[in-house]
């Protein structure tokens, strides 16, 4: 499970800030927001792939955390607890978007888009500048992830970005360990298919 960021020796600890926040000190909570907004925003952005929505959802996560702070028992690290809230807020949003019939996560459309993307970026089309090639690759990876279903995208972000162990992913989602492994496998296979011109090797 993600833990709190490394702290400077002179920095106030999360425990102190949480205690002061629980007593109603909004400045202490503001310090926690400043400390973790970058990581929470990164998570929401990777899952949503939309800057404005990710910004709103990150804010919503902090508001929910403030409201739930009286119930926070400090039996887990603050960031772990905050991360769960942010994850649930974001995943609820994704589920609602899916229920509303947005075709963005339709697997059939994904297949079509994969073919189109592969044609647009022929194998061996090397950019002259390495940095630019890296940026292009990053963009393609982002796009490929955005075409995954919410369930597949979720496990990829939790594993590859947050570095969670399988048990932690299963507890957070929640689902069985077998489901986590299956989703990770199929998510990677779909990504591999979309990025095969980049990651395909010859025997």
């Amino acid at each position: 499970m993600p833990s709190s960021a490394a702290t400077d020796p002179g920095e106030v600890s999360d425990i102190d800030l949480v205690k002061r926040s629980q007593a109603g000190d909004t400045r202490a909570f503001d310090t926690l927001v400043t400390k973790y907004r970058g990581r929470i925003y990164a998570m929401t952005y990777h899952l949503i792939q939309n800057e404005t929505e990710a910004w709103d959802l990150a804010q919503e996560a902090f508001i929910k955390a403030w409201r739930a702070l009286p119930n926070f028992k400090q039996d887990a690290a603050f960031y772990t607890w905050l991360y769960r809230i942010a994850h649930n807020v974001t995943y609820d949003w994704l589920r609602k978007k899916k229920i509303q019939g947005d075709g963005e996560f339709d697997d059939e459309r994904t297949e079509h888009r994969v073919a189109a993307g592969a044609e647009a970026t022929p194998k061996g089309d090397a950019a002259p500048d390495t940095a630019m090639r890296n940026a292009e690759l990053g963009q393609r990876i982002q796009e490929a992830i955005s075409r995954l279903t919410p369930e597949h995208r979720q496990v990829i972000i939790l594993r590859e970005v947050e570095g969670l162990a399988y048990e932690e992913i299963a507890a957070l989602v929640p689902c069985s360990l077998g489901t986590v492994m299956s989703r990770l496998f199929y998510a990677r296979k779909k990504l591999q298919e979309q990025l095969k011109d980049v990651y395909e090797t010859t025997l």
Partner: protein
Amino acid sequence: MKPPSEDHDLIRWIDGEMNDAERATFEARLKSDPMLAKEAEELRALSAGIQAHLPAEMKIPHADFFNSQIQVRIAQMDLDESRQKQAGNTSLADLFLSWIRQPWFATAGAVALAVLGFVWMRPHTQDTSHSLILSSYTPGLGVEASTYHDNEADATVLMLDGLEEVPSDRKISGISVHRSETEPEVASTTLFDATGSPLLVISRDDAGHPLFLTNTPRG
């Protein structure tokens, strides 16, 4: 099609989720199965690529505005809660008035008044009046603003830590703020003098920066 356990072994190897014995067995399989080895290598490269291109931390756009909006929403929630409590008190008052019309109220009222009289004789230690500060912002990085309500002075005190010292030859004159009104809908606070005239309006512009409107006499 491969059985799920084989797929699971593959990703558990990529993610380092195997113990030593499992890893040794699987790597022996990789040596004897070039197709599986190729697939494993491609998936591992993909995994490394994702990790390299998706940062765990990103710079949030309009970071100061992000924080200030959270503070404003927290203040609005507090205000809504206090309004709900007030509404609840109003309902209780209506209920109390309906009891007055009951025939047994006179006797019960006499007993209650005796008890209440005893309680009222004790000095009040809590003052429920307060000003609500939606959020504070200081343009200077070295200056920190904080507020508290002073019961003795019946005033909200604004503390600015980190300001430069005022030269001793500088004459300072102050203004007397008699009361303040907060309008959460537009996130503004108005300060009034003793005559009820507005002295200062504190609000925010569209970008979340503070706005100060003063009632300056025209010369």
